[in-house]
């Protein structure tokens, strides 16, 4: 009955190694996303961005990290101490957990051993991602509440109501994909899209809805209601400083990285690209293709952020509940009807 415990030691070691590598890559990408964000923002605004720390400012994330660690670790007097410290940890943990089901490639041949480039291929991968995305709210809510500051609380409530509203449309757009592919496993989905049979060609509306919801879930502009520097002085992390603030910001970039990975896998063929076999270079071609797609989407996320102004809160809710959810339901119904028609 207990299938999960029947694995041998070498298998566990291999998975631990993979988790370690993915964790390191995730952290590096998150760190360099901050640099990329600033550089891209600068370039879009006719500036040059950070260029002092190292060549082209490439050491800027290191400098930022050192700064974060060196700052005074301050806890407000009337804050709920335990939860105040716990909140960034929860947020970070949830952000890192999501990457476990993403297939980074087929198999990697290293020193004669075949390594499966996916931490775990559970047959409900998409639901697992939805589950952890829905848990991401807690870090924000607890952090905002434990700060004992009304602006933090406003920010937390805005952020969490935004996230639960957009989760619905996100889930509905994914249901259409699931109906079309007939699987919940991300690995199977990626395999089905070999060559140029990408899901986005069959589900353009679903992709659009999912993309908008992903922007909202990551709390990024034009949906950065949670932060609102202008009216909420930073939102839920107003009271946070030093590395605790760093954790929040870092986790947001990890969220962005993971959502880009999910978008690439679910809609844009994952590790597949027409003409490039993912098993080339001993299996390294798959990750290379997938990561180029991920970087492209990270760039699009940033590009959108530095182009569009922020939504007003009622516009945001209007778009979520009266715009995207009905659209996602229509998309779902259409997909169902068409699959039924084609299947019979």
């Amino acid at each position, binding site marked *: 009955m*207990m299938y999960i415990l029947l694995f041998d030691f070498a298998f566990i070691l291999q998975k631990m190694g993979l988790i370690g590598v993915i964790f390191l890559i995730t952290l590096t990408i998150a760190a360099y996303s901050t640099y990329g964000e600033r550089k891209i923002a600068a370039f879009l605004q006719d500036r040059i961005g950070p260029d002092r720390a190292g060549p082209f400012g490439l050491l800027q994330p290191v400098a930022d990290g050192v700064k974060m660690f060196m700052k005074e670790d301050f806890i407000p007097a009337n804050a709920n101490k335990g939860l105040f410290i716990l909140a960034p940890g929860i947020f970070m943990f949830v952000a890192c957990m999501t990457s476990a089901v993403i297939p980074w490639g087929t198999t990697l041949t290293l020193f004669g051993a075949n390594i499966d480039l996916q931490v775990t291929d559970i047959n*409900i991968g998409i639901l697992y991602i*939805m*589950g952890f995305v*829905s848990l991401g709210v807690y870090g924000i809510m607890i952090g905002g509440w434990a700060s004992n500051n009304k602006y933090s*609380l406003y920010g937390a*409530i805005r952020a969490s109501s935004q996230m639960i509203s957009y989760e619905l449309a996100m889930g509905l757009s994914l249901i259409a994909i699931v109906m079309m592919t007939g699987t919940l496993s991300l690995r199977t989905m990626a395999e089905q899209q070999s060559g140029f049979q990408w899901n986005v060609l069959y589900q353009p509306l679903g992709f659009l809805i999912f993309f908008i919801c992903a922007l909202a879930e990551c709390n990024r502009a034009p949906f950065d209601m949670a932060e609102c520097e202008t009216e909420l002085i930073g939102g839920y992390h107003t009271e946070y400083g030093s590395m605790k603030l760093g954790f929040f910001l870092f986790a947001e970039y990890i969220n962005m990285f993971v959502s880009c990975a999910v978008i690439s896998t679910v809609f844009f063929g994952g590790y597949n690209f027409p003409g490039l076999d993912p098993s080339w270079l001993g299996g390294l071609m798959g990750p290379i293709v997938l990561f180029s797609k991920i970087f492209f989407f990270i760039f699009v996320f940033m590009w959108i952020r530095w182009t569009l102004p922020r939504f007003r809160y009622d516009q945001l809710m209007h778009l979520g509940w009266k715009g995207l959810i009905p659209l996602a339901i229509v998309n779902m119904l259409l997909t169902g009807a068409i699959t039924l028609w084609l299947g019979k």
Partner: protein
Amino acid sequence: MTLAIFITLAVLSVITALLVVLSKNPVHSVLYLIVTFFIIAAQYIMLNAQFLAVVHLIVYAGAIMVLFLFVLMLLNLNEDTEPQKSSAWKISAAITSGMLFLTLIGALKGSTIALLGAPNPQVGLVRNLGAVLFKDFVVPFEIAGILFLAAMVGAVMVGKRDLAM
């Protein structure tokens, strides 16, 4: 090994469930409840019911408890704002719940637990679960769906009270 994991999870779930009731701060209570849900989800995974585990997390921990937390945060209930009940209330509540507890024990004492036979280990997987839901139990499933729809419409109507007047 599996028994040890089961017992650890079971003990943890009982402890966190008790902490839900015993902690003074309502926000802490909600957080302990979320931990309890997590442990129960882990039990589902032990039973090879991954779909149930994840849906349990999405629905309970991801949606319902968020709304709970919302209300608690907006009301800002704290230890010092908790209303003090008179001792008469406390005694009567203790007697009532004690009697309910005794009744439950009395009812279960003589009964034997009927085993459902050897359970199919694959029943928790999403494909089998879907087949069961949409073939054997399709009518109850649809009725439950209609019930939810009715509840949703009712909630909207309650929310739009001034429009009905």
